[in-house]
């Protein structure tokens, strides 16, 4: 259905897809929660731990030098893939959540005051809401919510109205994890900049699904998680413009992030990115994340995006033939996420029965409670796609749904 995309070959690279669940072949439709890992990622990590591991930086021995070079090579891979201006703009974090908290804890704490305003959309993941709420409860700034339309797109009129409040910062997700909406990050950033605001983009759901050009978007901060881009857990990155990073105070203190430590004269700090990387980093995770990005590049993110779009369209079509099924998130530009409910049926019941048939979907509020409250629903069933999903997966989902609905009605 989409030409040259060899999904069978891709699937063979993912050992987990050979698994059976409850006697059925696994149909994994939960990549928005976490993507599965291709062999190259698993083996890169294994190879590193088996033959190259050592703590990095400051070491004079060969293992330390090799590990450091592999680690810094991964930083270079990220910088090049996301088109940052320099390696120092890529800070390794434990994930997207950690990155947002870093921005809140350093830039936010240093720059926001009781009279500041922070804008965010109603679509945001808890990870992009709660750090700001915690900081707001301390500093006293105001959080204003940018409204959305029922199809899940940002209301630009409301956005402009809120920008008139002269916010210090605008936070938005590049792609909504619940609705799949792709926001026009470049346009939203440019409007915010025109209004004098800084821009932090939550790219957790964009990075695995499209080419992201940070200098083109021109945002000030951007975060992503490795485990959603076919990489390992416990690693992600924060991008920040160099001038901002230079000016920001440190967050976590520890080894690596210092220039010189003393009890007698003031301790001085290292330059970015090290200033923000306290302690021993997740060395094997960073290196394997580099491998994950290279893997995505080898398939081609444009190809992945086109394939996932085709799956999404097909899923919409098929699902809408089910009586009483409503899809949440019908933006024109959307990534491979399909959230839905069936009238009179609780999403967790569907999730439980689908699981019995080997189909892994996520049910619940997907860490977007304010969005669920706005729709006045307790949650949705969410099927989300990765590079390895097939049209057969969609068919299996639809058939299982029909069976489950019959049982539950």
């Amino acid at each position, binding site marked *: 259905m989409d030409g040259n995309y060899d999904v069978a070959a891709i699937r063979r690279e993912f050992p987990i897809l050979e698994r059976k669940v*409850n006697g059925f072949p696994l149909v994994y439709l939960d990549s928005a929660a976490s993507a599965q890992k291709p062999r190259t990622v698993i083996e890169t990590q294994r190879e590193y731990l088996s033959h190259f591991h050592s703590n990095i930086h400051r070491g004079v021995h060969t293992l330390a030098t090799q590990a450091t070079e592999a680690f810094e090579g991964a930083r270079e891979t990220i910088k090049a893939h996301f088109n940052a201006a320099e390696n120092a703009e890529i800070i390794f974090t434990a994930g997207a959540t950690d990155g947002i908290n870093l921005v809140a804890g350093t830039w936010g704490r240093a720059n926001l005051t009781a009279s500041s305003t922070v804008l965010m959309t109603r679509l945001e993941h808890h990870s992009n809401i709660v750090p700001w709420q915690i900081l707001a409860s301390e500093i006293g700034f105001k959080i204003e919510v940018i409204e959305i339309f029922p199809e899940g797109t940002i209301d630009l009129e409301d956005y402009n109205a809120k920008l008139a409040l002269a916010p210090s910062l605008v936070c938005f997700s590049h792609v909504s994890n619940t609705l799949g909406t792709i926001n026009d990050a470049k346009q939203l950033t440019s409007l915010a900049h025109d209004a004098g605001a800084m821009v932090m983009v939550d790219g957790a759901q964009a990075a695995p699904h499209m080419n992201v050009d940070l200098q083109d978007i021109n945002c000030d901060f951007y975060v992503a998680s490795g485990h959603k881009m076919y990489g390992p857990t416990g690693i992600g990155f924060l991008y920040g413009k160099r001038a901002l990073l230079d000016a920001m105070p440190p967050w976590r203190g520890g080894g690596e992030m210092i220039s010189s430590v003393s009890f007698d004269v003031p301790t001085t700090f290292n330059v970015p990115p090290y200033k923000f990387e306290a302690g021993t980093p997740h060395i094997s995770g960073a290196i394997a994340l580099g491998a994950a990005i290279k893997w995505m590049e080898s398939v081609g993110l444009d190809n992945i995006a086109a394939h996932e779009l085709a799956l999404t369209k097909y899923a919409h079509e098929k699902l809408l033939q089910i009586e009483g099924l409503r899809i949440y998130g019908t933006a024109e530009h959307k990534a491979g996420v399909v959230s839905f409910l069936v009238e009179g*049926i*609780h*999403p*967790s*019941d569907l999730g*439980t*029965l689908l699981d*019995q048939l080997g189909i892994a979907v996520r*049910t*619940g509020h997907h860490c977007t409670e304010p969005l669920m409250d706005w729709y006045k629903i*307790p*949650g949705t069933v969410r099927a989300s796609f990765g590079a390895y999903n097939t049209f057969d997966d969609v068919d299996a989902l639809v058939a299982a749904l029909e*069976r489950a609905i019959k*049982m*539950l009605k």
Partner: protein
Amino acid sequence: MGNMKLLEARQNEIIEEFSMFGDWMEKYEHIIEMGKELNPLAESDKTEDNLIRGCQSRVWLSAQKDEEGDVVFSADSDAIITKGLVALMVRVLSGAKPEDIANVDLHFLADIGLNTHLSPTRSNGLASMVKQMKMYGLVFSARS
């Protein structure tokens, strides 16, 4: 005075009932059936106090002591499978002595192969509900 044999007999009855089913889907059909048959809780009893936290589906549980000193449970859920599992719990524990409820070894879910639903890492709230039921048993036996 407790009567642990009663609870054991009720559990065995359920185990036998489920042994008739050949596959998972049949078991779930039965659970759904029981969910549908469970008397819904009055809306007035679906209070914040009776709500069990930490659930993807919501579970409400209320408990009273009857004249004989037995604990009578009523429960409900907005998800039908959870409600069916809740019904099974109520069937085993309702109308039993508080000290038996506090001490019972609930093995039947494991025996019928549904114990993953009881895992505290599961977000259906069943584990929390069982904990809450046992807590009622403890509290009521302390008071008597």
